[in-house]
């Protein structure tokens, strides 16, 4: 199945979802949609010609796209499994209006569609537009709950990323003008830009790059554009936060990677990576320091992902193929782990109706599964072996050391602070004197299998990948590395 057929199919699914009233049918349709994404990857990979172009080379699926789509589809698949029972619970408690259910599903499917389209855009302007659209659909999904705070969070989300993304457009225009001047015909196609990167003027390119970077940095949750994320993640339903943090953030990094790989070919590579290193460091500093006084589990995870985006940015900025390899593998590891964390907090939220630490009582007795999953997930995310993030984080840090040992020192210091942040919050949440706080009057929420299974699956996957990374995956990532860093 090619991209166009997929897009048409997805549109059909969205329409059907909007029409139907049965929750079960909506869920099944979403499932089919997600499965069709896997089919797309399969069909793309089944023919040896690579990369594949669509519609005048405006769209392209190369190894990087395949990889990112794979991560996105996996997360979506688990979220779809998780979502039905989760939404049932929200409906039952009146947090969600029955009439809005179709909207939720339609928005979710549209989000998946635009995500896949943005990953398969070759034209940077298209990438920009689709990224912008993901913002809008995400905001819609945050806002759909019956609470004013959600609307507030959604508005923040929209305004912060959209305003900054206007500058991306300016950067794109500059880039287009430059190609028009040097190559005769203007183009924004990444593949063409990669071909001709050496001929373009580095001064213009670095300006264009800076503008483009700013917008996508906002998408990737880089400080100081991260500010909307903690609010959005803590207010949105778990299933939405999961998608936002595990998939939508990747679009930003994906785009930055694309642009940076062009810059790497030119004379302004050093300046380009300085920008990455600066913002990466800033994100690590702000993300880690914000975690230390966090009282809200989801915001904690949000700031951790800010810190982590910073680390990945530094990994890209040091500009070696090995570092890129590890950053890419880390993207996978981190997305899956973060997804498991958000899904676990969802169960806890169903129990305590809050994400705040102070409201979590006797969790180890009342919700042993969710608590254990959250603890294990946290261990994984901070890089405790034998989970996959351990290996990737270790290796990224090693590559940073190769670049400069003195850059490594502050990075390690602030990573330690994130550890402390997690430890403070989790011990606070789970080891409060359980003898005193008897679960007693707390009505126990029984999480259905649909909520538990995805979490278990995710944890098992990162555990498995941590110990055994299939050769195919490694080859895939090396292929990406070769296409990006020539």
């Amino acid at each position, binding site marked *: 199945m090619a991209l166009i057929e997929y897009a048409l199919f997805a549109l059909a699914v969205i329409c059907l979802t909007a029409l139907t009233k049965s929750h079960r049918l909506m869920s099944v349709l979403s499932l089919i949609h997600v499965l069709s994404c896997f089919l797309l990857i399969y069909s793309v990979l089944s023919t040896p010609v690579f990369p594949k172009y669509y519609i005048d080379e405006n769209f392209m699926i190369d190894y990087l796209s395949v990889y990112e789509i794979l991560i996105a589809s996996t997360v979506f698949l688990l979220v779809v499994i998780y979502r039905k029972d989760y939404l049932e619970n929200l409906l039952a408690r009146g947090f969600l209006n029955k009439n809005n259910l179709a909207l939720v599903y339609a928005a979710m499917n549209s989000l998946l569609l635009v995500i896949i389209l943005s990953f398969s855009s070759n034209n940077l302007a298209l990438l920009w537009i689709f990224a912008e659209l993901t913002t809008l659909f995400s905001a819609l999904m945050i806002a759909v709950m019956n609470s004013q705070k959600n609307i507030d969070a959604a508005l*923040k989300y929209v*305004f*912060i990323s959209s305003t*900054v993304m206007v*500058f991306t457009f300016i950067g794109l225009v500059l880039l287009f003008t430059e190609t028009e001047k040097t190559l005769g015909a203007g183009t924004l196609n990444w593949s063409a830009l990669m071909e001709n990167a050496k001929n373009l003027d580095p*001064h213009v390119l*670095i*300006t264009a790059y*800076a503008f483009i970077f*700013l917008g996508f940095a*906002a998408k990737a949750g880089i400080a*100081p*554009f991260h*500010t909307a994320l*903690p609010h959005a993640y803590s207010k949105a339903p778990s299933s939405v936060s999961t998608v936002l943090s595990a998939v939508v953030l990747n679009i930003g990094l994906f785009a930055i990677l694309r642009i940076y790989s062009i810059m790497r070919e030119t004379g302004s590579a050093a*300046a380009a990576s300085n*920008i990455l290193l600066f913002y990466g460091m800033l994100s690590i*500093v*702000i993300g880690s*320091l*914000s975690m*230390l*006084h*966090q009282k809200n589990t989801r915001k904690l995870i949000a700031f951790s992902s800010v810190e982590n985006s910073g680390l990945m940015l530094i990994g890209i900025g040091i500009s070696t193929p090995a570092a890129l390899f590890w950053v890419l593998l880390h993207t996978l590891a981190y997305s899956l782990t973060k997804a498991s964390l958000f899904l676990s907090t969802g169960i806890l939220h169903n129990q305590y109706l809050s994400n705040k630490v102070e409201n979590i009582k006797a969790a180890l007795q009342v919700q042993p599964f969710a608590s254990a999953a959250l603890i294990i997930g946290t*261990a994984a995310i901070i890089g*405790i*072996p*034998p989970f996959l993030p*351990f*290996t990737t984080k*270790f*290796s990224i*840090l*090693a590559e*940073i*050391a*190769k670049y400069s*040992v003195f850059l*490594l*020192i502050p990075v*390690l*210091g602030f*990573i*330690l*602070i994130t*550890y*402390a942040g997690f*430890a403070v919050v989790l*011990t*606070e949440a*789970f*080891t*409060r*004197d*359980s003898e005193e706080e008897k679960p007693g009057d707390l009505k126990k929420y029984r999480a259905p299998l649909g909520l538990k299974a995805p979490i278990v699956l995710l944890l098992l996957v990162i555990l498995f990948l941590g*110990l*055994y*990374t*299939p050769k195919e995956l*490694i080859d895939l990532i090396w292929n990406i590395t070769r296409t990006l860093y020539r």
Partner: protein
Amino acid sequence: MIMFTSLFYLGIFLSLLGFVLPLLRLENNRKAHRTFSYSLSILSSVSFLAFSALVFLKKGEYLIPVYSNAGLIDFTFYVDQLSAFFIAVISVVSLSSAVYSFGYGEHLSHERRKDYMASLLNLFALSMVLVVASYNTLEFIFFWELLSMSSFLFVLFEYGKPGTRKAGLYYFIMTQLSTMFLLLGFFGIYANTGSFNIQPVTSLQNLTLIFLSLFIGFSIKAGVVPFHKWLPYAHPAAPSNISAMMSGVMLKVAIYGLMRFTLTVLPQERWWGVLILVAGTVSAILGVIYALKEHDIKRLLAYHSIENIGIILIGFGLYLIYSANDLNELAILALAAALFHTLNHALFKSLLFLTAGSVVSATGKHNIEEYGGLIKTMPYTAALFLIGAVSISGLPPFNGFVSELMLFQAFLGSYLIQDPLLKSLVVLCLSGFALTSALAAACFVKAFGITFLAVPRSESARDAKEVGKCMIAGAVIPAVLCIVLGVFSLQIFSLMGYRTDLPDMLVIGIIMSLFYAITYLVLKNTAANKVRAGETWGCGTPLSSRTEYTASGFSQPIVRFFKDIYQTREVNERRFYDKQNTLFKEGAGEIHLMKFFEEKLYDPVARSINYLSIKVSALENWSLDTYVLYAFLAVLATVAYVGWIA
């Protein structure tokens, strides 16, 4: 050769099995499962022990590939004499701890907790062995982190108890701090060589940085002053069988790391020995001085671990100094002393923790002021504790003495050093070391005397019952080894091929027992063999447990002597009737013992990070306008940067 490695594989397999089994909860008879899991732990310890003994005796170096994954993770293990020695130390202690746990583990409060205890014990022991056998730094950190994590869970094991959370946090942050320093050091090496393998490196950039970060990293984990603060929190919080392992061997893993990297990996520099010697002396002295003030039995033992780690570092520092000065014989003596003390400390400290655990579980109290007279109700435990106390105080003919003797000999050989300044430094450290060992004896007179002798000081001490057979058996293993390693030290050394002119403890032991026997036997049959039971002389007043000498009374003279080290802080609170503070209403004055390092080093650092964190958290103020302003400023900054460089 084949048999060797298969023993190693077998050990790993058994431990993993023991780790997984209790977690699965396959059937209802969980107790049988746990027993099985502990037995697996014992078996794996035995196989590791056999393996390391064989390696040690054959003096070989073995590369053991276990598992590797497409170049990401490479579990190839490397065992030479140094690592074999440490594996043996770890295995002995895990063995006795596992035996002890048969009894101790069943005293825990929840079924699930008992399961976790059995399971994590296996993981904990295994990860220690594998850290020591690591061949590359990724592997090292992998198992190091597993070790940290499993011990962290153990520290939080009884999370309902007050203070446990603080202990856990302290522990977690300090271990991760140590990991960060290690990473810095490892990556510093990696940046030079491009390889993660733990192999000799000839020339390095940033050598000082790398060495210092490795030293600090390992020091934190080993509990060297001033990085020791987590130890007295974490060890008392953990269950006693785990404290025994944490104190007995987990700290040694860090010592192993330090030795491995300074001995075989990095090119040594002259000043390292001085640094390590001074650090060792300082932590030995301060460790024991703090221990004297401490009345929580497990915390007291924890402070003694700091002291003993200091002693090990003293030996290692002397080794480095002597080998830098080409005094090879002395250097070998110092290294042998350090290693032997490592083993000895592992034995007597685990013995002490295990018996202390028995006391705690029999009385339910941690404070030695609430014990007393236990020698009558718990005679076996008392005898075992006494053996540990005599060993740790370094009294002949037990093992602790032998290693201290070797260290003294090494110290006294310093007259061969040429550099007068270095020589006088060594003498100063010698006097510090002497002070340490004397204070340790004083401290254990207190610990044993107040705990086991005289009259019970509380109801719970009066009602204490001797613990079960397994708990005694677990402690008997290290106790026997303490005696054997002491008395037969010279024979064991020569068996291992190390010839030295140390005093023969076997002869000394025989002479002493001969004298003991002679005096006893000669007088046994004389006329004046009458014995009468009386009362303790109390100047006519009736004596009770209230009139006994207390632990704080016991240590008071020493506390007075060293009052400058235990700094005190006075807190005066005054309340007045009026706002002008003229009419005094009431007031309170307190004198606190200052936790020097906590208040002068840890707290300021924590406070400044906290301050920063509060400032940064304040940036998030829930206002969209502010957020857009940040973005606006960032855009301006970026544009300005681009304009500047273009």
